[in-house]
């Protein structure tokens, strides 16, 4: 049976010298290099390639391209297994392993095909009707049933070993599709000197052109195509990308394409990705994406062996495969006669051509002259056969003249639908053309034009002329000087007679419209009967056109049947909108490089390795990695955190604070600028001093806080929180460029120029004095609290700030990035005799909670300065951003939740952030909530669990009160005492050491 259906000659795409062995459902077959999985299976007489989605009916391939709804298979095995790929575009390689899907236990015997017996119940809207009652069954019963039957194929369980990448390109003219119109467009645009990109989904150009029967420029079409490709590739300004599907057409002529770099190989070579996703920015686009042939709706039209006529021709001409030995062709148009001619030339028996049209077209007459049987005025009404077609019953459209014709392949042409998917993505509504029985694009919205079959032009000469003109027009509109007119490629003129509409052929059985979602003609009629009138509703109710093929072979028939049911013309029904992607794109391709740990970039500080050496556990803070805590051996997380916090207060600690945002501000108006940004005043700040500042958003809520230092009269140095660094800089840019361009102020990020450490604790001064020696006078006189000094250290400029987040005697030292490690090492060395320990972000947080300092948890974008107890900082002597809106009624309401401290009363286990504070634990709900706990710790300095919280009425109403910290998640409700947030050293004496 090997290659039983391979003809002895023919097949422009295959190389008969290169045999390829492959397996399908465990059985080994032989094919040729250049075959697709579908063509090789057909060559081996395998017609059954899959089972349908709903009824599990046996299915073979319907098409020879990416619009395939039936032959959906799993490719490859193990980690490279990919479900739901179309056998019609899967290129064969040696060792390819493919499996059918959606069947059990085997493709030939699928137990779920019993669904067919239930089919009277499995009609349109089955799910909506069946899984409604009782409601208690929704999750426990129905969801399980639906989930089990939903979905197709099995995704690989292992991580994908291949890589995917993104790439960008720009061009004057993008040509989509390398059929005759696309090639002509690329050639004419290319000859103007325009930058041209031609993308073609298939491995080879040519589209639907018949390589041997068609003649272009007096050459057999195959030769012309080859020559055209060579000419294009010789042009430096033209790029041709084959195996590349244009799948998305977005705003501003940005388009996306998927290049299948390695899918035709057993595995990617030489660090190549499996697939590459292209973002294309094109000045002008020529769409030449062709058309899709349609099926006719007749009973059992889904039997394996029933195929589209154009696909039958492609299998013969491209791959030298005869899909059957006795073929009956049923058509409503002239194109199928090409298939007949092609089959005849290849020596395949054409039993009859069944033409729905009553009158013989010139093409039909010619066929009859050549001795072919043409039954005009006949349509197919039922395909007969077990697991594949063995005969077809035909009859006149009025029901008379019924006859059964034996065949093993039924080639159907229900007419061609121009491919309007991409143009529909741009928002163009397709318009109906009665003469071709298809939708064509309306006027373009973006810089594009359609040409050839996707514009409804089906004759070869017309496609070439249109493509040629479109290419030149696109180049011209892209701003290229196109020069004198050039001659379009020519082909003999053909006279195509008009098709006749055949939607539902006579019959009462299952006549499929949408093959991939198992939607029948009856489903559409039923949907209409049940009141679904709009095409959008019928689509969703029946799932017509909602499978991964987006109804390429079925939409128009579905719309026509709905129009019939409504008793209205087709244009009144209209089309649904197509959306990207044009055909399925693997998630891997969208992700590209950004997967696993590369999902987003990682930012490392200069002292990252210092932390690593000391055993730091890192935490992601935005993109930054920060040391979270430094566990000693045998130490638990919490033990480590509280030990670090305790030791800082006892001796000293060093903490990497490089991630704080840093902004250098210059210019004579810097002070005025800061005055307008911050709620507090800056003009009086003396050079060499730092100040804490708070800024609001324009809506009056707190945006960010930090310390800003004045380094010189016209030079300030701002710090922001790690999280808000970029936001604050953008806010400042907006203010400087848009609000006050008259201010002479200039600033830039210095976050990465400087790295910094905080050294805090009673021994901090001693340690830094030892580390920096004579380079720096560490005395209280030289460096008082909130003082700032610059000094030279090892030839680098360093800055020291005497500021404290922990409440201890503390300093922050900044040095240029490349000096970071050296500085850390120097301080570490100096701290050896002074009990210096490293501390991470968690201990930092414990220390600041003990001091009642607000941080990210309290700065949550919903709080005012007054809420945080900082209302008095708001200057009334100057305007600043957010000032007006901070005065709104709701913002100054004395019942707002304001910052308080909470202390866990003895007897309770622990306090948790997020708990709601209520007065009565037996009446805890959203209405009785008085506020919420923001930050907590088991304070080593205070000796119990403490926290910061926002409570309505604040300390004024609740000081000393007992409330309950209600936490329904943990079913806890411990008693807490409301107190001042300044738990530790409330007078602030420790900052002096």
């Amino acid at each position, binding site marked *: 049976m090997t290659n039983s259906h391979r003809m002895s000659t023919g097949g422009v795409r295959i190389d008969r010298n290169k045999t390829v062995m492959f397996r399908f459902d465990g059985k080994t077959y032989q094919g040729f290099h250049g075959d697709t999985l579908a063509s090789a299976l057909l060559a081996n007489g395998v017609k059954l390639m899959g089972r349908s989605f709903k009824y599990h009916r046996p299915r073979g391939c319907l098409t020879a391209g990416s619009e395939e709804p039936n032959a959906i298979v799993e490719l490859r095995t193990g980690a490279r297994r990919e479900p739901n790929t179309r056998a019609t575009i899967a290129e064969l390689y040696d060792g390819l392993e493919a499996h059918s899907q959606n069947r059990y236990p085997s493709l030939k015997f699928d137990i779920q095909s019993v669904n067919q017996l239930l089919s009277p119940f499995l009609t349109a809207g089955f799910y909506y009707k069946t899984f409604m009652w009782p409601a208690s069954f929704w999750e426990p019963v129905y969801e399980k049933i639906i989930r089990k039957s939903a979905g197709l194929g099995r995704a690989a369980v292992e991580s994908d070993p291949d*890589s995917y*990448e*993104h*790439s*960008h*390109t*720009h061009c004057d003219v993008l040509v989509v599709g390398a059929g005759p119109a696309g090639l002509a467009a690329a050639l004419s645009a290319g000859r103007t000197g325009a*930058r041209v990109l031609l993308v073609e989904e298939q491995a080879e150009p040519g589209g639907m052109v018949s390589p041997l029967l068609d003649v272009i420029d007096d050459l057999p079409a195959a030769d012309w195509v080859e020559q055209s490709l060579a000419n294009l590739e010789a042009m430096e300004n033209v790029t041709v990308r084959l195996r590349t599907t244009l799948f998305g057409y977005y705003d501003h002529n940005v388009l996306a394409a998927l290049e299948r770099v390695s899918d035709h190989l057993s595995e990617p070579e*030489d*660090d*190549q*990705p499996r697939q590459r996703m292209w*973002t294309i*920015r094109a000045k002008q686009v020529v769409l030449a994406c062709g058309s899709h042939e349609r099926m006719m709706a007749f009973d059992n039209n889904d039997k394996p062996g029933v195929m589209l006529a154009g696909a039958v021709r492609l299998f013969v001409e491209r791959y030298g495969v005869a899909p059957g030995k006795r073929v009956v062709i049923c058509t409503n148009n002239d194109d199928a006669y090409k298939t007949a001619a092609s089959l005849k030339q290849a020596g395949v028996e054409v039993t009859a051509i069944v033409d729905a049209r009553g009158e013989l077209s010139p093409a039909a007459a010619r066929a009859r002259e050549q001795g072919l049987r043409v039954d005009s005025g006949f349509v197919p009404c039922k395909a007969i056969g077990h697991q594949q077609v063995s005969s077809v019953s035909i009859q006149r459209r009025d029901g008379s003249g019924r006859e059964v014709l034996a065949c093993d392949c039924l080639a159907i042409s229900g007419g061609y639908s121009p491919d309007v998917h991409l143009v529909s993505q741009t928002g163009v509504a397709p318009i109906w053309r009665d003469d071709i029985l298809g939708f064509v694009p309306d006027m373009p919205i973006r810089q594009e034009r359609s040409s050839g079959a996707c514009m409804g032009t089906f004759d070869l000469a017309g496609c070439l002329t249109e493509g040629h003109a479109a290419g030149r027009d696109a180049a011209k509109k892209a701003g290229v000087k196109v020069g004198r007119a050039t001659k379009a490629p020519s082909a003999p003129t053909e006279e195509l007679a008009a098709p006749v509409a055949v939607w539902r052929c006579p019959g009462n059985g299952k006549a499929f419209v949408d093959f991939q979602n198992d939607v029948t003609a009856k489903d559409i009629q039923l949907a209409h009967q049940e009141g679904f009138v709009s095409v959008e509703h019928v689509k969703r109710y029946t799932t017509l056109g909602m499978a991964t093929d987006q109804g390429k072979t079925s939409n128009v028939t579905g719309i026509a049947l709905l129009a019939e049911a409504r008793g209205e013309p087709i244009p009144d029904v209209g089309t649904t909108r197509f959306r990207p992607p044009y055909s399925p794109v693997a998630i891997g391709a969208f992700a590209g*490089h*950004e997967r696993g740990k*590369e999902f*987003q*970039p*990682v*930012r*490392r*500080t*200069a002292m990252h390795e210092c932390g690593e050496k000391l055993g730091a556990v890192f935490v992601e803070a935005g993109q*930054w990695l920060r040391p979270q805590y430094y566990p000693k051996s045998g130490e638990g997380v919490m033990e480590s955190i509280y030990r670090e916090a305790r030791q800082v207060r006892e001796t000293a600690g060093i903490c990497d604070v490089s991630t704080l945002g840093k902004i*250098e501000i*210059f*210019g004579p108006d810097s002070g005025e600028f800061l005055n307008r940004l911050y709620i507090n005043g800056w003009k009086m700040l003396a050079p060499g001093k730092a100040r804490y500042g708070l800024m609001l958003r324009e809506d009056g809520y707190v945006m960010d806080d930090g310390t800003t230092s004045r380094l010189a009269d*016209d*030079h300030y140095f701002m710090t922001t929180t790690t999280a808000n660094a970029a936001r604050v800089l953008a806010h400042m840019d907006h203010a400087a460029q848009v609000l006050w361009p*008259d201010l*002479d102020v*200039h600033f*830039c*990020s*210095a*976050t*990465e*120029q*400087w790295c910094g450490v905080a050294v805090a604790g009673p021994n901090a001064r001693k340690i830094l004095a030892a*580390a920096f*020696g004579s380079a720096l006078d560490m005395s209280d006189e030289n460096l008082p609290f909130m003082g700032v000094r610059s000094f030279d250290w*090892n*030839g*680098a*400029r360093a800055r020291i700030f005497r500021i404290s987040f922990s409440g201890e005697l503390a300093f922050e030292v900044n040095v*240029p*990035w*490349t*000096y*970071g*490690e*050296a500085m850390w*090492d*120097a301080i570490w*060395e100096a701290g050896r005799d002074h009990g210096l320990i490293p501390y991470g972000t968690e201990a930092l947080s414990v220390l600041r909670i003990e001091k009642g300092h607000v941080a990210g948890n309290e700065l949550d974008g919903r709080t005012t300065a007054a809420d945080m107890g900082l209302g008095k900082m708001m200057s009334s002597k100057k305007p600043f951003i957010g000032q007006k809106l901070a005065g709104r009624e709701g913002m100054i309401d004395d019942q707002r939740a304001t910052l308080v401290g909470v202390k866990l009363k003895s007897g309770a286990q622990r306090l948790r952030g997020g708990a709601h504070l209520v007065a009565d634990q037996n009446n805890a709900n959203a209405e009785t909530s008085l506020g919420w706990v923001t930050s907590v710790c088991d304070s080593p300095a205070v000796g119990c669990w403490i926290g910061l919280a926002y409570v309505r009425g604040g300390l004024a109403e609740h000081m000393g009160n007992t409330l309950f910290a209600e936490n329904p998640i943990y079913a806890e409700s411990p008693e807490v005492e409301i107190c001042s947030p300044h738990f530790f050293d409330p007078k602030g004496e420790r900052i002096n050491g």
Partner: protein
Amino acid sequence: MADFKPLHPLGNLDELVEKHSFFGPGSAAITIGVRKSVECAQLFAGNGNQAKIAKKLNFDSSTGKATETKGFTALPIAPGQWILISKNSAPGFADGVAKSINGLGYLSQQSDSRICLRVSGPKARELMSRGCRLDLHESHSGAGFCAQTVMAQIGVILHQLDDNPTYELYLYAGFARSFFHWLSHSAAQFGCDIEIISNQIKR
């Protein structure tokens, strides 16, 4: 006092070269050069001083392209703002420029903030297209082309040095390893060598 050892954000460069280079000088389709150090500063013209500063420093501020002077390359990054890359890398570059502009503008020392990677070789343009959204075709961008953009989710300043083409990418130090990882991976399919560019001596 601990021994002073400046640290490149990519770590030990010799180890990096050892790990990544297989082809030998000039034979790989891509060479990624890592500049050992970059002496640079951000220059701001005071309001109304843009032309005066350019005249004083003797560079053309009107082209939107990188311009060269004897001592530095000026990369325009915003109206009245440039990144100046020193050519001789003498220490105190920023202070020197600040002195010569005599109050017409301001200098922010940025030598430590960024690393510089140089991409060259016959496939340089193709490699850039893997991450760069800008049109780097020769008809659109030639020597001196300069832009701020995003590659691999990381902000970069891109400078095309010549028409070969050779590109220099400046990016913040903290992103150095992430970016290098992406760049060297993307370059592997072409064949890629790493080299250290030490024509500039730090301080």
